Structure formats: C-alpha cells, structure tokens
C-alpha cells in the first residue's frame, strides 16, 4: 500500500499518470519511462446477475470494492475512498454522482451501483447531505431506479430541472453551452457514472459523452458523429477540474441500436470500468463493443461507418484530455 508520504514524493517527481493532470493522481506511473501511462481497471463478476436476470446487490458492492482496491492499491476500501475524497479536495464539500438515465429503464446506470458508491462515501466520512446524485432531470434519475430526494441532511437526488442552468453561455471550440448549476455551484467534485452503450451517431457513449447530461442543449453537439462536440465539451475547465473519477457501469449494455433500450441487442458484460482518463476508458470501451459486435455477426463500428472519432479528437494536442494509444495505457483486468 502506498503511504501519503510516498505518494507525494512520486507526485513531486512527476511519476504520475496522464489523467492525473486534472484528476486525482491516485495511481502511480507504471513504468520507469518518461511517458506516464493511464491506468484503467476492468473488474468482472460473471455471476453478477442472478438467475432471475436481476443484479445481485451484494455482488455489485463486492465488485465495486475489488475494483476500487485494484485501482488505488489500497487493500481497505474505506482508505481508498478517504484518499479519493482528500485528493479531490472534496472533504466536507459536495460530491456529485452523475448518472446516465437517458436510455430509459433497462439501459441506465444501475441504482444498486450508485447507492453502493454513496454508502462507501459515507463510510469514508462523507456526510449524507454532501452526496448529490444527479442527472438531466427526474425522469432520467427514475429510469435508473432512483428516488428524488431534496432533503438536505440525506443523500440527495435530483436533476438539473430542479437546479436550473447558468445564464452565461460558455464557449470552447465549436461548443456554446450553458452548464447545470449542480456542476458549477454545488459540486466540488463529480464521480462520473456512465453506462456503456452503442450510439447511433457517436458510435460509443460512455465516459466522455456522459458530460452531455450536464448542459442545457446537448442536441447542439451531435453533428458529425458528435465530433468534435464531445471532445470540446470535455475540454471546458469546469469539467476538467471537477470530473475526477469515472466508475463506468458495464454490467448491462447494448451493442447495437443504442443509445435507447433495445432488448434484442442487450448483453451483460458484468463489469465495472474505473479510471481517471476518460479518453483511455472510451478507447477501451470501443474495443469491448466491437468485440461483442463481431461475436454477434455485426460489422465493427468502423465498418458500420460510425467509428467514435471523437476519442482521437479528445486525445489530440488541442484538447489533451487523455490518451487513446493502448501503449500509453495500463489496463488491469481482474
């Protein structure tokens, strides 16, 4: 286990992962070369879904613990979560959990995962009222299986339809957006909780595209396969600074016909994908989707003429949001 002193020493010598530039700096460089690597953990449990097809909540919590331990190198998950909160500068501040319920019931971030994270945060000393589960609106949150709650002393759960959006239009590249006040005014840190899906326009929707649910008019960023819309949006400083960690829900997914619920194309990867580098996560997610598509006799996303080009754009020198080169990633599968 890494002590805080050791960690700070490594940080000072620059031996930290790429994603740490704007993130948590939770992981160490994994080789001694000059180029750091982005760490991504894929944790799987083939028995995550019971015989009735429903998620086993105890197994989901256990999978989350395994994934966080592997990612942070902390054996005790409570220590890992304390470290995450501390490194994010979110101690005694509001931590947002940004879900994705756009696809509707059946293909939204699972409540059981969201609530497990909220529980672990509380065990790490975060007050319930400082945890805010949020998305675009009440309908999206309810699609995840969550209940709206605005009680200040409890874990809160509401959407941007309650908070509203900033009046000021912000610009980055091609993007002109108004951010949710939940992001700009309430949260010191946000944990990104997307769900892995095929997307009819962008090819893949996962870590990077989940930011679309933080702005007032996401439809304005959908042109040309959401490229450069997704990359531009992620480049805004408020997103760079506050989206510290992604815990991707790949327990259920659609490999074709997304982003909506298509039971005929539903599958259960039974996995969580964790990292700070959203570009690396999406690059890996692309590979997972393509592998499944080929298994099912479908064309790859490239051959289907909707490759997720936004990933390379996000990695380019203009955006510099992370790495899409597998050689610069450290993928740990457990």
């Amino acid at each position: 286990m890494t002590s805080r002193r050791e960690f700070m020493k490594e940080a000072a010598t620059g031996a930290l992962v790429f994603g740490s530039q704007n993130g948590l700096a939770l992981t160490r460089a994994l080789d001694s070369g000059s180029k750091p690597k982005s760490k991504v953990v894929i944790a799987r449990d083939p028995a995550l879904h019971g015989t009735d097809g429903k998620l086993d909540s105890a197994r989901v919590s256990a999978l989350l613990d395994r994934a966080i331990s592997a990612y942070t190198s902390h054996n005790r998950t409570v220590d890992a979560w304390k470290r995450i909160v501390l490194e994010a500068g979110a101690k005694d501040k509001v931590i947002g959990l940004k879900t994705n319920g756009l696809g509707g019931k059946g293909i939204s971030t699972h409540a059981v995962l969201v609530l497990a994270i909220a529980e672990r945060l509380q065990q790490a000393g975060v007050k319930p009222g400082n945890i805010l589960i949020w998305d675009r609106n009440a309908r999206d949150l309810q699609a995840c299986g969550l209940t709206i709650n605005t009680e200040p002393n409890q874990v809160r759960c509401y959407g941007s339809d309650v908070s509203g959006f900033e009046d000021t239009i912000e610009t980055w590249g091609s993007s002109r957006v108004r951010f949710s006040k939940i992001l700009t005014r309430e949260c010191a840190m946000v944990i990104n909780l997307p769900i892995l899906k095929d997307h009819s326009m962008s090819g893949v929707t996962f870590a990077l595209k989940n930011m679309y649910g933080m702005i007032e008019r996401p439809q304005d960023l959908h042109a040309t396969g959401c490229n450069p819309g997704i990359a531009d949006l992620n480049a805004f400083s408020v997103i760079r600074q506050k989206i510290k960690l992604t815990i991707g829900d790949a327990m259920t997914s659609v490999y074709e016909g997304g982003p909506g619920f298509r039971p005929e194309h539903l599958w259960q990867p039974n996995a969580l994908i964790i990292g700070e580098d959203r570009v690396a996560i999406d690059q890996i997610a692309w590979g997972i989707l393509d592998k499944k598509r080929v298994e099912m006799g479908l064309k790859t996303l490239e051959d289907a003429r909707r490759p997720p080009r936004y990933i390379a754009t996000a990695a380019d020198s203009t955006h510099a949001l992370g790495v899409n080169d597998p050689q610069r990633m450290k993928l740990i599968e457990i």
Partner: protein
Amino acid sequence: MKPLNVLFAVSLIALLAVGAISGCKKKIATPFPASGAIAGWDKSSETRIFEPKDLWQYIDGDSEQYIQAGVVSTSTSDYKYKGQLEAVVDIYTMSGPNGAQTILEHGQTKDANTVNIGDQGLMYAQSVTFRKGVHLVRIVAYQSSTETAPALVALAHGIEANL
C-alpha cells in the same frame, strides 16, 4: 317524399355524420389503448408527445435518424401487463410511409421474426415493431417471460386497430 320521411332521412344523415366525425376524432385523439381495452394491459402513464425539434429530449442521438426519415410527431406511453410486465409504446408519425419503412428495415437483424401486424411487422423476444401507413410503432418490454411475446402482439393489434 313525405315530410316525416324527409325528417327521418335528415336525422339519419346527421347521426351518421356525427358518428363519422366523432369516430375520426377518436382515432386522431389517441391510438393508445385505454386501460382494460386489451385484456391484461393497463396504460400506466400519461402520453407524452414530442415534436421533431424536441425529440432529442426523449431519445437523444437516436432522434437524428427519425428526423432524417421525416418524423412529424412522436408519442409515447408506458403500459403494464397484469400488473407485472412493464412495457413502453412509441408511435412515430412520419411524413410518408417510406420514412416508417426506412426506420423499420434499418433496425432489422437476422434474429427478427416477421409478424402479421400492419403493413409490415417484426418481432423479437421482448419487442414488436410494425409500420402502418405513415406510422411506425415500437413496443418494448422490460422483462421477459413466456407471456411476453403473446402479450406484446395483443397490444400491437390493439394499437394497429386505432391507427
């Protein structure tokens, strides 16, 4: 013609006209079957209607293919079968039949079974999609059981009759 016969004829025409108008109105008002209209099925939510410019709010990036295919209006409602099986019904009204056909065939995969509903229908284990004229109807169930497929087909026929 005797005055009584004339009065009868006028009354009959008036009644038929009222019937025809109210019948048309009913079809225009809602193709969504009311609770109990199809055995076992309850309409469990209000109908939501989206214009093309707002369709993204419902189906995000999927909206683009419908807009390109000429969608004019989208209506959706939730249903429940015997209080257990949950489903959602989406009705896309296109500017012409070709738009409905384009969308239906675009999403077709090799595991689809044809089903005799409307002008063309496709069925999967948990969903039924069919087109009738300018309408494309998709019914998706959230759970799967032995009852799912026949229940979805019954609901689809009920909707088809209202279009």
